[in-house]
């Protein structure tokens, strides 16, 4: 395991972003974006190894749309995409999985569980 694994986190809530930073930055090379604009700006900077995407993103494209976009890109065709959302319904999970998500995690999620989920892939 190496800290070089690059993680892109898409989370609109400021406090949540800060929580992810506190929890995941020690283990991964993390990049944060709060909406679609920041997301598209971050993408060309690095080749990411894994994604954390929230579904509800306020204004602009939502998480599902971003997942679909990623899956259309050759380089991210099979990159793990972990969805962490407060949407609790089964149909939300189905929609996300159909769009190409690798894993669907419901908020609130335990910090350790979250870290271990990402470590699994490296």
């Amino acid at each position, binding site marked *: 395991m190496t800290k070089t694994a690059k993680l892109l986190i898409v989370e609109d*809530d400021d406090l949540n972003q800060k929580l992810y930073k506190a929890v995941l930055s020690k283990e991964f090379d993390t990049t944060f974006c709060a909406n679609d604009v920041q997301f598209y700006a971050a993408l060309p900077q690095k080749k990411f190894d894994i994604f954390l995407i929230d579904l509800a993103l*306020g204004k602009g494209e939502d998480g599902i749309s971003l997942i679909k976009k990623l899956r259309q890109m050759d380089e991210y065709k099979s990159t793990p995409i972990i969805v962490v959302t407060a949407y609790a319904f089964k149909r939300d999970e189905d929609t996300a999985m159909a769009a190409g998500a690798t894993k669907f995690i419901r908020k609130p999620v335990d910090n350790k569980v979250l870290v271990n989920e990402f470590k699994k892939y490296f």
Partner: protein
Amino acid sequence: MTENVNKVRSWAEVKWKTLIDVKAHNDEDVRLGRLFNTLMVISTAIVILLVIVFLMMIPLGLSNYTTIYLAAVFPLVFIPLSIYCILSAKHGHLKSSINIYVWTNFAAISGAVWLFDGIYSPAWLLYIWTITIAGTLLTPVYSLWMTSGVVLHYALLLFFYKLGLYKPPLTFGEAGREYATIASLLIMFMSTVGLLTYLNMKSLQKALNDLHNEIAEHKQTESELNESNEKYRTVADFTYDWEYWVGPDGKYIYISPSCERITGYKPDAFINDPELLTSIIHTHDRPTFVNHLSEVMQDDCDVRRIDFRIITRSGEIRWISHTCCSVSSSAGKWLGRRGSNSDITERKKIEEVLRKSEDKFRSIAETISDWIWEVDSEGKYIYTNPRSKDILGYEPAEIIGKTPFDFMPPEEAEHHRKIFNDAVKTPHSLRVIENINFHKNGSIVILETNAIPILDAEGNCTGYRGIDRDITERKLAEQKIQKINEELKELNATKDTFFSIIAHDLKSPFQGLLGYSQILSTEYSTLNEEEKLFFIQSIYDLSKSAFTLLENLLIWSRIQTGKIVFNPDVFNLQEEIMPTVEMLMQVASNKNILVECQIHGKTLVQADKNMIQTVVRNLVSNAIKFTNPDGKVIISLRQNGKFIEVSVEDTGVGIRKENLDKIFKSGAVVSTKGTANEEGTGLGLILCAEMIKMHGGKIWAESKLGKGSKFIFQIPSIM
């Protein structure tokens, strides 16, 4: 040969008829005239015979020439007399002819007697002829008078002869007298006796003929009478109904044997006991019958008819239809009354069943809440029960003669008239046909029609009979239910979305709450003070926003479940708005936003204080939230007709046009962070809308993106 004889005979008969026929006014005169003329012919024959007799005396040498010639010439006088009389009679002067002839004859014979041989004259015999004719043609009295005259004449001649005062001027002499007397006697005998015998025989023959005819006629009448009697007896005795004839004395003259079939009593029983009929009549009907009897026996009243019950000999009750009429002879004599009793028990039973059945159906038809009707083949109402009044507002009398289509809107009428006309052509049941009608008061009535065709013996449809049910309420209820159903579906979908958003928003803070508190509890010793403070601050912020959301959610749910009751009160709007606005001034000044409250003076409203405060707080805090620093929020108020309008205007970011309506609806809870990243619950405006709705007012927003928004709510003012 015989043919010629017959020809001659018929010719002679015609000639003879022509000769003796006379002109007359009646049959009797015709007959008399014929007889008279016949006698005139005979008379002429007698004259000729007498002349021959007298002339025969010359060759016989029985008398002197003077006497013979005078005697032969004397009768010739009668030939012209006879011819004159025939002609006169033929011209209608029969009576005078007879008188002239008879009296001339009488006088001539008297003269002859005086002239020839006096009391010994053979002419006396000639009186026989005269008297016979007078007696036959005039009246028998003439014979008497003439006979008396002849006797007196003879007595006078005898008297004068014996006194020597008279001596006959001429005489036939003894031998001539004997000859003339015998000859005259023979002629008179032949003519007179022959004539009388002929006449008598003719009368006798006529009498016999008459008698014979009379007997024959009588026999014929008798046989016809018998036949007729038999016919009537047959008719009467074999008549199915119970027939009778009561004489003027009240006794039965005839009663048909069929009475036994109906009553169990034989005709004799009724004949022997005239009271029997009355006594077997049911006690309920007896007074009516007795009254009827006294009425009809008083005078010869016309046909009367009554129905009554009798108790038969076996104790059975039978209904009788009684008809009676007065009978009188052809001469007009009253002969009593003829009665006819028929057994109508079966008919009465059927009538009773029918009556009950009709009663039953009528009472159903009259009391049922549905409208029952009957129309002819043209669709015109010929029956309607009283429900037409309740259903369409028209009395049955107003409905009769109209058609169902008269009560429908034109298009509806056309549509249903076509259905009806087709149904008349090919008769079939009409089932559950919904149609729109106008009530008399103009309102709409929806009817559901069911009908069946009425067919005649040939199977042609003569009309329809049916039931109309007022389904207006049901239809309206159906429409209402359908509408509610749609609303519910929509609401349900809205709520689904709403709940998923709420669930998301409620859960979201817990990620931070749990995450930060976990770090604090597990890694507390490794964290520096700054980190610790940040995490604790974050936990506080998250808790606060979660609590606000929860609180709004609870208010919303209490409104939804009716737990928050609209509790209006009359108050001055300014007094309640100002403190609310002032509470938010601090937040506004933090962002350097100017809040201007342009509400002055007293504006009384009848509203729920808490709700108005909540609405104003939400609108003003939103305005502050979405306005950039150095912006402005203006709260103002104005009267707009019957409403009071409160508006909150800002110079903020504005709202996209497509979102202007959505923000008040629970279907799309969108929480947008403020210009200073303020958290929202997305429920505030939804709550405002609910509350204003409870006031009977409305709320809406106007906005220009990047320039600002204006939120306005309207509540009814106190007039």
